[in-house]
């Protein structure tokens, strides 16, 4: 009997757990460890954050799903990995701190044959003083945050209905943030909702981002064919903003937030302040801070994790200049180079470098998007790794492991701009590959046949349908596995 332990029940971990269970006979055990017994379809938090969807609609209770599928669930937070065992026990294990209602804080050890780290990001609000729901700004990174953001947003709408002008500031809360696409989508939804509430004329909507220019999205921007031209995502995004009267600040590192005010530095080294009544600023991400120890109890965290807390996998982590970055630097099988039975999927794996060219301000402050690992690649990587582990468990070692490099995966990004079937629209963008490969596609780094952008209700319908499909899949309802990631 083999035991596969998956840390994290987010998009990557939950997908990995379902596919591992589907491939492995019940004589093998699949265990999921996660601090909450609830799955959150995070992309739809955008709609929760403007009060257009309830948080109940974006979550799935995990226990019934796992009971039905034959997956064991441990409600807890992994805190230590012992890849060589501990003391007299020479088999690998993880230490988990209980987060359930019973015995909260108690620690237990769980042995594993294969370990998948799918712990996603730590939302590092602490990197910017005053940032986050405990400070002066909102977030939509969790469904609880999104609920709170909706309350603050609707309060601002009420103020506008009373005739008071409000400034709404939306974007990234630090120079090294990722996930700019989420902030972009949120600002478009906020603008749509303001019109729906008939208070648009009372609102000043400002987007603030660490991207060097609009439309960068942490992937160095993209190009697509439109109207007989190849246009950049910069023009596409700027057009959307100008049309909607959204102002923007790019190349910005938010240094600190006080009540109603952000302080930020821009790439030219200048310091600025901006006042706001409502702000939703995403935090930067780090790894979740698990430690690794050898059998003697020595700290070997640096063998498993990069300094930013993300896990080392089969990527080329050697320090290189932007000009030397290659598609081949990106991991393919997501296996830890030192411990072959440990894998990391989704946001938890350490990317070899950024995708957007790194920039520092005139004062030397790094202001540059970190590489995104969005839902689609996170889930594909989760599935591929789970299937490869199943092959190992079943002794199918003659099969070559499947690969899922982000330099060979595409991504679809549908940024909804309003949650209404008829008047809502969305900017649908797809790119292939996510990491540009200038050896294969010398001109733009991407295949323009598969990279496109479009705006209209069709995109909104796709986004809404995807919401229901992914919730269906998360519930492991009949034929769930036929729904692509």
């Amino acid at each position, binding site marked *: 009997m083999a035991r596969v332990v998956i840390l994290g029940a987010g998009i990557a971990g939950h997908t990995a757990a379902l596919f591992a269970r589907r491939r492995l006979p019940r004589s093998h055990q699949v265990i999921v460890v996660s601090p909450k017994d609830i799955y959150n379809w995070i992309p739809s938090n955008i709609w929760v954050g403007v009060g257009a969807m309830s948080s109940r609609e974006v979550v799935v209770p995990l226990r019934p799903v796992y009971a039905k599928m034959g997956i064991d669930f441990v409600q807890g937070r992994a805190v230590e990995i012992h890849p060589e065992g501990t003391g007299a026990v020479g088999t690998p294990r993880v230490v988990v701190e209980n987060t359930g209602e019973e015995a909260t804080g108690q620690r237990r050890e769980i042995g594993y044959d294969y370990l998948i780290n799918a712990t996603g990001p730590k939302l590092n609000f602490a990197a910017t003083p005053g940032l986050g729901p405990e400070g002066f700004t909102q977030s939509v990174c969790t469904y609880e945050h999104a609920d709170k953001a909706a309350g603050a947003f609707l309060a601002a709408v009420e103020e506008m209905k009373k005739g008071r002008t409000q400034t709404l500031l939306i974007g990234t809360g630090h120079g090294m943030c990722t996930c700019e696409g989420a902030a972009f989508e949120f600002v478009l939804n906020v603008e749509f909702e303001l019109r729906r509430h008939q208070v648009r004329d009372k609102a000043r909507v400002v987007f603030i981002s660490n991207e060097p220019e609009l439309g960068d999205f942490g992937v160095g921007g993209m190009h697509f064919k439109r109207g007989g031209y190849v246009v950049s995502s910069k023009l596409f995004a700027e057009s959307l903003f100008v049309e909607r009267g959204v102002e923007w600040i790019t190349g910005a590192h938010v240094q600190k937030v006080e009540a109603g005010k952000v302080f930020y530095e821009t790439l030219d080294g200048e310091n*600025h302040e901006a006042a706001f009544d409502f702000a939703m600023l995403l935090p930067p991400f780090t790894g979740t801070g698990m430690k690794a120890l050898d059998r003697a109890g020595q700290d070997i965290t640096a063998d498993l994790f990069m300094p930013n807390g993300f896990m080392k996998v089969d990527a080329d982590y050697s320090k290189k200049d932007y000009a030397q970055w290659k598609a081949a630097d990106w991991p393919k099988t997501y296996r830890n180079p030192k411990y072959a039975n440990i894998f990391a999927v989704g946001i938890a794996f350490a990317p070899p470098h950024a995708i957007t060219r790194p920039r520092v301000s005139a004062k030397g402050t790094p202001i540059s998007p970190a590489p995104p690992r969005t839902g689609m690649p996170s889930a594909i990587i989760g599935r591929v790794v789970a299937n490869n582990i199943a092959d190992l468990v079943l002794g199918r070692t003659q099969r070559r492991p499947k690969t899922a490099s982000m330099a060979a995966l595409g991504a679809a990004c549908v940024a909804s701009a309003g949650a209404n079937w008829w008047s809502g629209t969305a900017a649908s963008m797809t790119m292939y590959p996510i990491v540009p490969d200038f050896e294969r596609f010398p001109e733009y780094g991407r295949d323009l046949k598969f990279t496109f952008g479009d705006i209209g209700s069709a995109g909104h319908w796709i986004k809404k349908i995807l919401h229901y499909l992914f919730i269906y899949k998360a519930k492991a309802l009949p034929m769930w596995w036929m729904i692509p990631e």
Partner: protein
Amino acid sequence: MSVNKTDQQAPLPTHSTRFFRTFVPWQLLKFILINLKMIRMIRRSH
């Protein structure tokens, strides 16, 4: 705050472009086309 307000370089949609963005028959066709494009891209990624 120094912000970029109306970048005149940004192309703005014409009235008809805006109309077609929410014109249901046209969007139904787009819905099919975008889905086909996405399926091709997803196939390539799987």
